[in-house]
């Protein structure tokens, strides 16, 4: 029997496996009809203990487009978690009904507990401020499609780098490619955690921390904007003081490279002005589309299904 694979952290997959996922995601676009019924009679459980639009819907759209079906819940209140059921028991039960689980939970490490209690593959669809590996796969596919490569570039990450789990996962993933420089643009209060800095140092990566988006702009090949998330703050005052620190508009983009790729995991609040949406460098809605393609490839990979 093959060993069950999970995706808890992006580093659970080798660079070669990620390359394969990207290849399959591109093949899905080119040969869509070959994948239409490939997951017939397979069920995906989407267990979202915390609200989400893009991630949950893109998982569901991915499974439906593969010919499979979907069941689950979209908030803890509509599951037995509201009655006090543990994550362990919920996952163990749902594992009896489905072939694969995508779960989001506000507590860090919850998917690890889930994976310890079931024999179906677990996909971490976000665990608190910790990891969000399928967003990272989405980001890598977007960068690959826009730049044609995943190495040799300067990546600017801007906004809430402390609680922004997409940022932590993306840094960890890109550390494995050659010659990536990270420019970390944030207020002091929202800088990346120490353990992420340790990982960058251990990998020998070049990185700098700056406070000004304007100063950093000219050297960037990728600008990854993030939302300052209200739910990650312990008090409202800090949130209000910091949320408007970094707003991207057309004026700020005057100093940017012509082939800059602007990304954002979405949803945005006001950190990217709507006027930027029509700029050819804005890629965040394309990124959302990439999210569906890479999740289709991921489901196939974890279920061990290949196109005939």
């Amino acid at each position: 029997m093959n060993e069950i694979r999970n995706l808890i952290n992006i580093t659970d997959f080798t660079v070669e496996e990620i390359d394969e996922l990207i290849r399959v995601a591109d093949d899905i676009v080119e040969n869509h009809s070959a994948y239409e019924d490939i997951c017939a009679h397979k069920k995906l459980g989407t267990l979202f203990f915390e609200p989400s639009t893009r991630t949950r819907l893109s998982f569901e759209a991915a499974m439906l487009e593969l010919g499979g079906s979907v069941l689950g819940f979209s908030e803890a209140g509509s599951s037995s978690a509201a009655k006090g059921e543990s994550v362990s028991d919920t996952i163990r039960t749902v594992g009896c009904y489905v072939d694969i689980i995508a779960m989001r939970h506000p507590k860090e490490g919850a998917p690890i507990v889930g994976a310890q209690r079931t024999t179906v593959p677990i996909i971490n669809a976000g665990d608190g401020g910790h990891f969000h590996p399928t967003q990272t796969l989405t980001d890598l596919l977007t960068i690959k499609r826009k730049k044609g490569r995943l190495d040799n570039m300067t990546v600017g990450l801007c906004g809430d780098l402390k609680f922004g789990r997409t940022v932590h996962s993306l840094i960890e993933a890109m550390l494995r490619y050659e010659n990536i420089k990270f420019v970390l643009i944030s207020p002091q209060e929202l800088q990346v955690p120490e353990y992420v800095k340790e990982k960058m140092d251990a990998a020998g990566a070049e990185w700098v921390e700056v406070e000004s988006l304007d100063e950093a702009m000219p050297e960037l090949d990728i600008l990854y904007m993030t939302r300052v998330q209200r739910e990650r703050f312990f008090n409202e005052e800090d949130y209000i003081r910091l949320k408007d620190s970094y707003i991207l508009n057309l004026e700020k983009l005057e100093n940017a490279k012509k082939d800059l790729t602007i990304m954002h995991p979405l949803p945005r609040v006001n950190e990217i002005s709507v006027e930027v949406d029509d700029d050819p460098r804005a890629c965040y809605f394309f990124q959302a589309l990439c999210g569906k393609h890479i999740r289709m490839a991921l489901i196939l990979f974890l279920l061990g299904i290949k196109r005939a």
Partner: protein
Amino acid sequence: MNIDGVNNGIVLDHIKAGKAIQIYELLGLDKIDSCVAVIQNATSTKYGKKDIIKIDEKIELDLDVLGYVDNNITVNIVKDGELHKKVHLELPETLTNVVKCKNPRCITSVEQEIVHTFKLVDKERKAYRCIYCDAEHIAK
């Protein structure tokens, strides 16, 4: 002060002065029937003062717990009144249910019955990380 030697058992030597009681409790020595001597503030040529615990029985010791609490402790196994084996402790690679994660965002803060597990990430700083949330814990 004279304390009888151990005939068949264990002597924990070079315990940092003042830590013997903590180790006595951690190892559950209050629950065994054999003779146990706790010596505090004994003279040490190496450290000035030290604590010693003598156990007159060959019991199973959790060396990971001991290594975590104080990795300078020497474990002497005594057999027929002679030193049979000397074990020098190291910081354990994994801590299992020795300390609890203090990160309020960690799943271990709400989920019952989870095995609290930390992995050693930096020997020099005695730094461990929770396997669930990556929160750092420094051994004192």
